Each structure stands twice: as C-alpha cells, then as structure tokens.
C-alpha cells in the first residue's frame, strides 16, 4: 500500500474494516473505543492489515495491535509501505 503518511493509510484501513467514517478513526483510537471495534471488528482489522500491509496475523499481533498508535508503530518498524 502506498500514498500518504502511514497514519492516514492506517486510518483508512481501519475505517474500511470497521465500516465507519474515517473521521471516527482518531490517532488515539483503541480497541473497544467504538462499538464496531469489538472482537469481530478487531479480527476484520487484522485481516485487512494483513492484506494491505502484509502484517502477519498470529496470537502476538492480534493481542498487540490494539490501537491506531500500536498498529502504526508495528507497521513502521516491520513493513515497507511503498
């Protein structure tokens, strides 16, 4: 995935996965902050992150990537976005 700063790409991905307007995906947002970001929503987020950023989904990432900030940090450290 490319185009735009990482945080905006992550915000767009979460908005798509959770089916909410992108304005609701604030940089501070975390699992549980939106009704849509529940357990099922979280797994939708994980699968779309895998598809768009090649994030490996395993028990560690499922448990760790629980906020916009954590997702950005993980992707920034582990994956190229260009």
């Amino acid at each position: 995935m490319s185009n735009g700063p990482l945080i905006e790409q992550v915000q767009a991905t979460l908005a798509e996965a959770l089916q909410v307007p992108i304005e609701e995906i604030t940089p501070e947002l975390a699992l549980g902050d939106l009704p849509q970001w529940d357990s099922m929503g979280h797994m939708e987020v994980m699968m779309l992150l895998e598809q768009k950023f090649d994030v490996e989904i395993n028990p560690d990432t499922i448990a760790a990537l629980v906020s916009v900030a954590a997702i950005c940090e993980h992707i920034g450290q582990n994956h190229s976005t260009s």
Partner: protein
Amino acid sequence: MNTLKIIPQIEIPDHLVGEVKSKLAYVDEAIVKAAVAEDGKEITLELSEAVDELSRMRLEEKVQRVVTSMTQGAFKPNVQVLEDHMAIDTPYRYDPTAKLMECGELSRETNGVFTLGPLITRLVNFFEDKFLNLAASFDAEPYRFPTLIPARFLERVNYFHAFPHSLTFATHLREDLDAIDHFAQQAGCDVHGNLNQPPQSFAKIKTLLSPAVCYHLYFSLADKPLPGGKMIATAVGQCFRYEGINLTSLERLWNFTMREVIFIGDKDFVLENREISRNRMAQVFEDIGLAYRVETANDPFFIGEFRKQAAFQSAFQLKYEIRARLPFKDSTLAVGSYNYHQDFFGRHLNITLPDGNPVHTGCTAFGLERMAYAFLCQYGLDYEQWPASVREYIHG
C-alpha cells in the same frame, strides 16, 4: 447404514479437526455419525437413509461450507498450558458408562438427558461442596437464577449470532381454549418420540432454556451503574446446550448443571480474582488427585463467527479450560473454565463503573456432571480405589 465420504476442498488443519467434526452434527438431520480423518483429508458421514443424487450434492455442499468457513484463513492458536497434572497415576482405564447404566446409576431419558443415581449424585455433591468452598473464600454473594431466559436478553448479547446451533427453545400452548382442548384430546407421540401436534398450537417463542448461569446476573444489573463498582457472586443452575449427535454419555449433555463464581468490576479486579480462583482450585484438584491440565481455549462458536472469535479469544487468553484426563480414550474432557469477558457484557448491557466506563466481567465455571464423570473415568466405581478425601466425604 449409508456411508458418504467427502474430500474437503480445503484440507482441515490438525488443530481444527475436532472443531469441524463437532459442527458436522448440525449439517443435516440425515447424519447419524460423523468422522474426520486425523490428517484432515477425508470426512465420513453415516446417514440414516439412502439419499438421492440431488440430496447428496446438497449435503456435500453444506459440508464444504462448514469446512471452508472454519478453515479458510484460520489462525492457528498458540495454546498455552498453565497447569499440567496429566501424569498423575490414576487406577482406572475404562469408560464407566456401561457399568453405570447396568447398575442403575445412570439412566438415559433421551439424547443428552440422563437421570443420575445415588453414587453419581453424591459425587456431584462432593464437587459442588468444593466449589461452594471456593465461592465462600471470596465471600461471594449467593444468587438463584431461573432456568428460562428471555429471547430478548440473549439477542442483546449477540448470542443468536455466536451460538445459534446450541439453543433450546421454550414455548407453551396458545391461550386458546380450542387449541388446548384439541391438544388434550389428540396429543401423543409417534414412534420417534415426536409430539403429533401442529406448530400453530404453540405460542410464539419468547423464552429459551438458559445456556449459561452468569448471564442472568448481568441482565439483572443492566442499564445502571454497578453499586460500589465491584461484586463477586455465585450461583448454580441448569444449563442447556443442544449438540445433536454429539450428545453421548455424560461427556456431552443437553441438560447439565453448572456452578459459577462470577466477578464484576474493573479489569484488574476481574483478572486478579480469576487468577486467585485458579490457584485455589489447583490445590483442591491436587487434594482430589485429579489428572488434568489447564490450557487456553475458545468457546464453540458457530461456523460464521468461529474463525474470528476463536482467534480473538485465544490471542487475548480470555478462556482457560480445565481439561480432565479420560484414560480410556487417551483424551481429555473440559470440566470447567476460568473466563474473562473483557467489557463485553458491560458495553452490551450498559453496566457501568463509578467512572462511567463499562464493567469488566469474568467467571469460574464448573460442569458438575462432567466433573463426576471424569473422576469415575480416572478412579472407577470401586470406593476402595478412590482418594481418601473423596471416599471419606461420601462414606463419612
């Protein structure tokens, strides 16, 4: 018997063989037995009657749907073992079911519904006593909950999406004198035990038989702040989870008894008490001499939600299962669990902490019949072979 062999379009990974097999019970009423090869490459179904080509194709399509839904993109759970006491030497090596039936200790009323005799009842009471001690160690407040539960309660916590397959519905005759008179004069059962009355004799379904104990407490606390911000409660109740052809012996009951100790408060309060209850029960199980392990697990979600919910539960270690050894089949049976629901019930039922945030909940739950069954599988029916603590409780 008519046998149908199906090659799954997607090979079933070893960690899902048991889960897929259990879901095959819900594919079609014609299926009387289902097996999945250990390597996940073949499914064998035994059918009650021969089926024509069209029915066979439909059946196969449904089986493939189950397999695909549960396995495509499935995440392999990282099962963590928290306690391992499987090596404890226990004296019995057989399934006690036949002997229990023979001596009148166990009487089958219908699939998954059994009457228990004095020996098993005393064993159930023994375990219940231990769980009551656990509850008392927390000063848990006692509650009594009904067996019926309103449909709208379960709808509110998404139960219909997560576990539709295991629901048991309750209804009654419509308030209509003609319908009641007709029923009184005509009602009877056919050779299969089916009531011969038309569906329109019965009222619309508004209630079910309860699938769990702690839900009743959460519903009673809904839509208000939790006084004091924390509580610990305990209750025992009849639970109902339909499992079709999987309902065999005391391993899987449609109607079973569950004792729970329930924790409600903030995250730390719930997690801390879940851990304390696990440690206290470890001592109890050691005294009893139970061979078991505790490991991370997931609930038996239905196929649509299974893959995601199971992965989420596993990753966040929301469920620890107590799995007792069944020596006769070199396997284990879940006899209880230590559960953390995060703020799921707090959010869905609007139960709040003093700071306005939703409460977190958790429970420690034990299946009483399964506990007794697992004990009998390990120690048999001969009192002399039983650990002293159990023998003394039952014989004084």
